[in-house]
């Protein structure tokens, strides 16, 4: 199991995968918006998206878990 965490504080602008989807290492999971910049947050392992912990529009702090990949 691998957690995808926010690399900085910001809002969740777009979620680009769905729960149950198979993703590969380096694939974008969500796009955060911080200081008017889009910051893609990618998976760091191959696997299946087990859980998405955020919704579009949510505010996340640095280190918050965004998704769980199995």
């Amino acid at each position, binding site marked *: 199991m691998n957690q995808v965490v926010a*690399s*900085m*504080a*910001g*809002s969740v602008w*777009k979620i680009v995968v769905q729960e149950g989807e198979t993703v590969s290492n380096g694939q974008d999971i969500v796009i955060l918006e*911080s*200081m*008017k*910049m889009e*910051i893609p947050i990618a998976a760091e392992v191959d696997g299946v998206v087990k859980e998405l912990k955020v919704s579009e529009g949510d505010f996340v702090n640095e280190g918050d878990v965004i998704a769980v990949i199995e």
Partner: protein
Amino acid sequence: MSFTKILIANRGEIAIRVMKTCKRLNVKTVAIYSEADEQAPFVKMADEAYPVGPSRVQESYLNIEKIIEIAQQTNVDAIHPGYGLLSENAGFAKRCKEVGITFIGPDYTCIEKMGSKIEARRTMKTAGVPVIPGTEDPVKNVEEAKKIANEIGYPVMLKASAGGGGIGMQVVSDDAQLEKAFDGNSQRAKNFFGDGTMFLEKVIENAHHIEMQLLADHFGNTVHLFERECSVQRRHQKVIEEAPSPLLTEKTRKNMGDAAIKAAKAINYANAGTIEFLVDEDQNFYFLEMNTRLQVEHPITEQITGIDLVEKQLEIASGKQLDIKQSDLSIKGHAIEARIYAEDPKTFFPSPGKITNLSLPKGEHIRHEIGVEEGFTVTPFYDPMIAKLIISGETREEAIQKSMEALEQYVVEGIKTNIPLLSLVLNSKAFQEGLTRTSFIRDYIYPNGK
């Protein structure tokens, strides 16, 4: 009629900048602030300050009805929109007019005309202002885009008509790249601006981004206040600006000034405005866009002309006639502005956080425009620009030298800033030689990527 009280529908350094002139002119100021900005310096500086909503701009600084409500309750004469946020929102300018509050900027019809890049191109071409070779109408699909790109010749710039800040914009070198880029950029533009209309322009090689500052009143008087060279950019946003430009000859300066005045007159423009041009190294210039507001980099123009642009904005908006003629204006010395961003100097990723230590260089030739203070937390909700350092010199060499010294003494701790990048740019031989093309950072600072 002069204004006695105005509302500033903005935040950070520009809110403070506007208030400085208001204080000098004895105009009372009303600030509005989001939850995240409750402790911000601009809130303390205003004569009155009112909460406008939660931290996100959509719920606060872009909430037109709430802002109008505060303006009516506080009985202000006018609203200054600053830059960004609602400054180029025709709907807001129109709403102000409807409720009888003066919008300190042009009429909303001018904002509308210049807000659509395709319409702006058409208007300028008709007015006889040179435009970059490209499409006159929206490009419907990728097939049509390919046909046009082959006619004007690769490389071409794919652009969103409603775009800004580099969003929905991409250089493509062949059919395959264009095919790959078209739908994605159109979709991004639709997501960001609600309009996915695309158009194409030829890429101008070795281009400089140079803009002309204008002032126009309601009586048909229009003057230009010379140029600003704004070529050094990262992520299509300006980092260092200077005035005058090291590229322009006196003849080109005059021709660009005349073209800018012609552009403003073509749309009956009144207030401060800026015409952005791309200029190649053979002195050919092409209309890029018009900014119908005060620019971030306006202080360098103030430094070389001695004119307070915010004061002129207030005078024009209150119905006064311009008291300066073109023949009154001349360039005195050289000015450089360095934008201080809360971001990583190499990756350009934002760096929000608490400023634990702040120490600014001091000197007669140094001007600060700053929206933060020690102990203030830079939040992730707004633009990463936290301050501007403006340096004046007798000559370009002196201004560069003094800028480098000032940046060495500029201390911001607790967050990352782009100060190391600014120093690299000013210290580079290429900048000192005036080779400030829009590709500057890629060409000279980070040639291996970014």
